[in-house]
Structure formats: C-alpha cells, structure tokens
C-alpha cells in the first residue's frame, strides 16, 4: 500500500531533478524553438515565446506521468491516473522550489550568469511564463501535475484493450508474411531477401546521390567511410578479439599518404589518386604489422592502452615541429587533388558518393568472405580461447598479425578517400576521439557483423548530423543516447549469429536444424 504511493513520487522527484537540469542548460528553450519551427513560426531570437516553453514542460509532465503509470502497473485507469498525478505533483514541487529560487533572483535583479550561464533575466521570465515569481512557480507546478495525470490517463488507455484491437490486423498481417517467408526453404528465402536487399541498396546508392543535394551526399559519404573503418576494426576486435584503441592512426597513415602524393605542398608529387590509394592501403597494412610484431604478447586492456599510445604518438608526431617539413605540422596538407576517371575529373560530391559506395561494398565483400573461411575461424578461436586455439595448431601470433594488418588496410583505404574528398588533412582529424568513435560504432551496432556495423555507423556519424537541429545540445544528446543504446541493447543493435552449415548428413535427410535448439 505504501509502495503504491511511494514509487510514483520517487519517479516524480527524478523527473523534477531532470527538468531542473534541462532548464539550467537551456534545453527547454531549444526544444521550444524546435516546436515553434515545426509549427511554422519564425524564431529569430534565442528565446521562443512563452507558450512553447510551457509546451516543453507539458511534454515532460506527460512523459513523467506515463513512466510512473507504467512502473506501478495498475489494472484500472483510475489507478494509472492517480500514479501519474502523484508523480507529476512530485516533479512539480521540485520545479516549484527551483522556480521560486530563480524568481527570487529575478525580483532582486541578481545576475549569476557568470556561473550558470543561461539564467538571464528574460530567460527566467520565460520559465516563469511572464508571471510574477510565485504565480509562475505555481503555474509550473500545476502544469506538471496536470500533465502527469493526463499522462497516466493516456497510459491507461494504451493498456485498455481498444488499442490492442486496432493492432490486431497489423499483427496478423506481419505474422502471416513472416510465416510465408518461413515456409520458403532456407536457400530460397535467403535468395528472396538478397534480391530485395540488393534492389533497395541499388535504389539507395544509384538514385539518392543524384537528387538529395551535396549536404546529404557528404553525410552519407562520411557514414560510408566509417562503415569501412568499422569493418576494419571488426576484423581486429570483433573476430580476433584484440582490443585496439589507436585504430585511427592507420586511417591517418592512409590520409597522409594520399595527401603527400597528391598535393602541391610540400613535395608536389602529384602521382594521381589511384596509385596513392593503393599505396595508402599498403602503408597502413605495413604499419599494422610493425605495430603488431612486438606487442602480440599483450592482451586485453594492455594492448588497448599501448595502441592508444601508438595513435597518440602518430598524431603528435604529425603535429610536431620535427616533422613539419614532411607533414605540414599543425597546418596539415591542403588542396589535395581529387581522383580522375578516364581522363575526366571524378571529384564532385556525387562521384565521391559512388566511389565510397563501391568501396563500402568491396570492404563488406572482403569482410564477409574472410569471416567464413579458415582464417576467419582461426580468429574466432583466438577470440574465444587463445590457449586452446594454439593447442589446435593455430599459429595465433601469425593470425593476430594478419588481422591487425588487414584491419589497418581497411583504415588506410578509408583514410585515403577521406583526405582526397576533403582536399585537406591535418593532425587534429586523427585524434583519440575518432578512434573511440569507431570502436563505439562497432559495439553499438553489434560486434562482428556487417549489418550491425552499417547501423552503428549511422547511429554514430549520421545521428550527430541529424541532431544538428539540436545545435549546441547535439553532443550532450548524443552521449546520453550512447548510454541509453547500451542499456537497452547490450548485445548491440544487431547481435551476431553463428552461420549454419549444411552437413552432408543433413543432405541425407537427417535434418539437424530441427533437432538442435541453439
């Protein structure tokens, strides 16, 4: 009995705290102006009109109510409403105290923006919706409480059977289709999906670049490059289980190879794009070998930190005075010439989009084939249990090196394209944060599989671009999303599955697939 009241209130307090935090970083103003834009109003000032600010509070209240109602799962709608209302009230009371505080600041004309940077007077005024402090605070309280109750009500409705009935037909439809697909036998089903997949991919790759403008071409291109990087790192981390943190160093090597061979400064070599591309890949692979040779004894986080060090070393050296004549130091290397194809320049955003699409396809192809082969199995065995792998006759050192070199080669490819697309590369492009991004994307996507890597690349490179509307809050939101993604899908968005083999015995009719339950 006590709990039934206690829990919603607890949730309410959490939401209240969150609300205060969001207000303190001005998040509400941002959301409000987004709403205003969405409703077609021009917002030229930093602060949108009061109704929108109120709308933000209402949304938060709704969410709070729904959350509370879900937690204390009641059968009857009244119960849900009560829970929602309680939580809203709690959240409101926290906000109330806060509002009284800032209201006091406002009425005494105390400016603390030097410490809490958003609390300008008209912002406070906005939070209080233009009302005198106490009234404004009460208004906030009221709004939150009401919204909470409404949220509870909504949840109650969702729970009640009506909505389910609406869902029925859809469910039925999906089920039936999946059933149909299931009824197709393995090979045919696979084929059907592959055809569909290829068709869609073709549509995406061929038509979109032409007609969605340079910006989205650029973003998609970046995503593509990170897919290549992700696949490369997946060879190392996902398959052979070596945690490498300085991966971007190989990317840098590829980029700088391209830059040095194809820019007027410092050497004016101008070898052309394609040879530089090949060399970039080769150099990156060699770097992988050289790094690997002394370190193959290290495992887990020791390898991680050493490779991290390697990455930093490369970056600092490229930036340092020592190598300035060679690498341009902090200035990097500018106007790198783009590729040419059959004599005509091949460097518009669309051309690059195609180039990258092809490279991604190539990378995925190679990765996929390596995955299901003797080396692939050897890597997996190393990841699982190095000692046992060695006892099975796997030369672990050699295969770890192979993984590192191949992974590095992927990075080299991506780097070379990257440099010539931006026509610029500098040391700060290859900071630790970039390595971390690549690692995050393969884990967010799901370690060791191609679709996961693609999805992860979208999540990590596409999302921040889509979050541009959030202006200064995009990285904040991004960080939060990263945590949430991990909490909700620890195995990654698309967990890996083991391939199924068709043993000869199965061919003899003894169908193994049914018997085992994996």
């Amino acid at each position, binding site marked *: 009995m006590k709990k039934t009241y206690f829990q919603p209130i607890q949730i309410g307090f959490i939401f209240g705290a969150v609300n205060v935090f969001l207000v303190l970083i001005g998040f509400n103003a941002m959301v409000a102006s987004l709403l205003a834009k969405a409703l077609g109003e021009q917002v030229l000032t930093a602060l949108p009109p009061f109704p929108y600010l109120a709308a933000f509070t209402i949304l938060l209240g709704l969410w709070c109510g729904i959350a509370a109602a879900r937690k204390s799962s009641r059968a009857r709608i009244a119960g849900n409403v009560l829970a929602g209302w309680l939580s809203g009230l709690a959240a409101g009371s926290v906000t109330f105290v806060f509002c009284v505080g800032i209201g006091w600041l406002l009425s005494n004309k105390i400016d603390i923006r030097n410490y809490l*940077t958003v609390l300008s007077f008209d912002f406070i005024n906005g939070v209080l919706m233009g009302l005198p402090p106490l009234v404004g605070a009460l208004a906030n309280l009221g709004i939150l409480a009401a919204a909470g109750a409404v949220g509870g009500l909504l949840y109650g409705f969702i729970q009640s059977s009506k909505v389910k009935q609406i869902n029925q037909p859809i469910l039925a439809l999906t089920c039936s289709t999946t059933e149909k697909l299931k009824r197709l036998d393995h090979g045919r*089903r696979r084929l059907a999906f592959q055809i569909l997949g290829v068709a869609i991919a073709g549509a995406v790759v061929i038509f979109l670049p032409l007609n969605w*403008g340079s910006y989205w071409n650029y973003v998609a291109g970046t995503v593509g490059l990170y897919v290549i990087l992700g696949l490369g790192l997946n060879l190392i981390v996902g398959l052979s289980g070596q945690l490498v943190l300085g991966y971007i160093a190989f990317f840098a090597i590829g980029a700088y190879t391209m830059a040095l061979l194809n820019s007027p400064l410092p050497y004016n070599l101008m070898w052309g794009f394609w040879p530089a591309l090949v060399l970039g890949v080769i150099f990156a692979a060699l770097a992988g070998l050289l790094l690997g040779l002394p370190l193959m004894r290290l495992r887990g986080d020791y390898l991680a930190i050493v490779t991290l060090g390697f990455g930093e070393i490369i970056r600092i050296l490229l930036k340092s005075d020592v190598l300035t004549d060679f690498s341009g130091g902090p*200035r990097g290397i500018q106007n790198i010439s783009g590729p040419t194809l059959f004599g005509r320049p091949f460097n518009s955003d669309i051309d690059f989009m195609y180039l990258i699409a092809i490279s991604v396809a190539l990378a995925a192809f190679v990765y996929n084939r390596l995955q299901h082969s003797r080396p692939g199995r050897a890597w997996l065995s190393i990841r699982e249990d190095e000692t046992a792998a060695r006892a099975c006759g796997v030369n672990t050192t050699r295969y770890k090196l192979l993984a590192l070199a191949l992974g590095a080669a992927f990075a080299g490819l991506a780097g070379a394209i990257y440099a010539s697309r931006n026509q610029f590369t500098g040391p700060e492009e290859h900071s630790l944060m970039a390595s971390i991004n690549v690692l995050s994307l393969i884990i967010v996507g799901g370690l060791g599989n191609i*679709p996961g890597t693609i999805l992860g690349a979208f999540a990590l490179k596409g999302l921040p671009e889509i979050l541009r509307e959030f202006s200064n809050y995009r990285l904040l939101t991004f960080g939060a999303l990263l945590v949430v993604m991990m909490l909700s899908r620890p195995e990654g968005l698309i967990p890996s599955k083991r391939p199924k083999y068709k043993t000869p015995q199965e061919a003899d009719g003894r169908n193994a697939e049914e018997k085992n339950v994996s």
Partner: protein
Amino acid sequence: MKAARIFVVLMFMFMMMTACNAAPAAAEPNSPGSVTEVSGSDSATTSPDAAAGTPEICSTDAHGCAVFKPGDVVKIGMGAPMTGGDASYGFDISQGGTIAVQDSGEFEGFKFVLVVEDDGGTAEGGAAVANKFASDPALVAVAGHIYSGATSAAIPIYEKAGIVMLSPSASLPTLTTLGSAVFNRIVFTDARQGPPAAEYLFNKLNVRKLAVLHDGSDYGKGLAETVAAKFTELGGEVVITEAITKGETDYTPVLSAVAAKNPESVYFGGYTAEGAVIVNQMKQTGLENAIFFGDDGTYGADFLSRTGANGEGAFATIAPIPADSPEKAAFDAAYLEQFGKEAGTLSPYTWNGYDSVSALIAAVKSVAVVGNDGNLYVPRGALISAVRNLTDFHGISGTYTCDAVGECNTLPPTFVMVKDGAWVPAP
C-alpha cells in the same frame, strides 16, 4: 538470419535518408544566371514567373541571385566549434556576430539572421557545415569558419556554390595564397605582426638573445616562425625554439629548459590561457628577468587577471584598435548585458566576430536590390567582389581594407604593454 537483417538495415537506411532528405532543400541554387526564389525561410524552388521583376544584374551575375519574398530573412552563416575543447571560441565569436546582426538592423524591411552551425573546428565538420550552408538558398554569406582546418575543407565547397566568406579568426597563411575568390579574412595574421614584433624586440628593447615559444597551433607556430626568421635576419640570436602542448597548465619543464639558455626575452605565439600560465611560471623557473612578449592572442583583460603582479612589463602586438571608440564601448556594454560576461573573456576574437558579420551585412546591403515585384535580389557574384573590394571599413577592432587575395587586416600593429595592471601603449 543474416540476409534478413541486411534487408532490414537497408530499409532503415532508406527511410532515414529520405526522412532527412525532406528537411533541407535539395536544390543546388546557384548555377550561373539562374534565379532561385526563397519561399518560407529555408526551402527554394526555381520558378519562372519570378523572373518577371528580376533586375538586370541577376541574369548577368556569375552566380545568379538569391531571391527573398517580403517577410523572408536573409541568412548569414557561421561555422564554429560549439562543442569540444575549443567551444569557447565558437560561443564567443558567434555571440559577437549576434550583436552585429541586431545593430545592423533591416534592409528595405528584410531582416538578417545569423545561422551558427557546429563544425567542431575539424575539416570533417567544416565540410559538412559548408555543404549544409551551400544547399540553403537563403544563405548569402558566411562569417567564418573559425578554425583553419575547418576553413581549408570548406573553401572549395563555397567556391563552387558562390558563397562569400569573411573569416574572423582563421589565420593559416596559405588560406589566402591558394587563389580562392570567395575567401577573405579580417584576422590579424602572422605575416602582419611577426616581423614588426621582431624589429621592436631587436631595436626598441635591445634584445639580442631571444627564446621563441609557440603552442603548436597553426596560428602560434606560424607567428613564432616569422618572428624567429626576422629576428635572426636582424642579427639577433634565437637561443631556443620550443613548442608547448596546448591546454595544459604546467609548463615549468619547458621553461626550465628555456631558462637554462638564459634568454633576455621570451616571445610566445599563442593564446591567453597558455600565455598567462607561462608568465606566471617564468617567475618560478629562473626567468624572472626575461621580458615576456606576446601577440594579439595573449592580449586581453583576463591576461591581466590571471597574471596579476607577474604580468607587469609584458608586451603584446595588437591590431590598431581605434582607441576605445564609442562603438566599441557600446558593443562591450551590449555584450555584457546580453551574455553576462565581459567581452573578450571567452576568446580574443569577440570584436572580430562582430566586425566580420557587420562587414558582410554592409556588403549585402550595398549590392542587394529590390525588384519591382517587391522581392529582394542579392546577386552573389557581385557580393563576392563587393567583399573583396572592402575599403576602409571602420570596425570596432580595426579598419579593414581587403587586398587582392582577401587579406583585410593589412595595417601595421600597435604595441602595448602591461603597466600597473593595465594595458597601455608601449613606448
């Protein structure tokens, strides 16, 4: 089952892409002679009937016109690092720009707005932002980018789109030597203040043994190099050249090494944060008697607050500022009022931000024409040349005259020093 998952992922990609695609305009607005009309505030459609009231200039202009219906806003873009380690520069400069927009008011009833996008200061971000701006037909000019890396990657894209740039702070020398038509800058570059600083050190202060430090950024490094070169050319001796790691707060090791060479003066190319630390730590590392000589990056109010007594007798070179003009005072007041901080506490480029934006808006006003259909026409090609031909534009941090390659801050520097806890003109 893998194939299925691939399929799902591709579907997801497709939907996501198309969804995003819907938001900004896809048109490449600026093919020569074309007329792109802005409907609403940020989506463009080329419509023939708009050609009715089109003034002559648009058909002749190299990049065509941006067209604004009454009630539309004219956008000035700014690509700046708003996240990551250097966000303070982005915040500061964009805030300066915001005030500039407010001050420069309307033009024939058309409002201006500053659109700030986060480029993180990197080439990747710079190119992304540049592409975003390039695909927005309502955007006529870019005050930026802030960091040279981002700028390098952005220039070719604006070049193609015919959008004029006026960077408040990108100081990399080679930016203007690559023959870009659209890129200009009002930042006070290495080439401008380096050699004079060296001469001042050698002749006025009679320094013969100079230690040169820089913060490893392209700005500081370039500056240090020019100074060192000039100083040796004058016959002085550069006893040691060291680079420090930006963003750290303990440089005693470097300074100890410098002290061992006992120089008469330490020249530092970099910003206030590191400069102040160096000045303070010079006092504990046996460099008590060496003169600290900084640049426009180390000049500023917070240099004084950070160094206190240690800062006495420090020098700096700065762009010739019209000695606290009323405009400047007004700006500082407005900045403090709006953002709750003294101007220049976040970065030394506040005033440059203001100037570049107001200069751009002035240029737009000078070339824009209102067609007899009441629409506003901004010929992009004309705008580009207008900015390049900027002459004697009186900003609050200098008087700007752009030369043939787009260097707009070409006056010799003035020298200042700290005396009794205040910056005063040096003798």
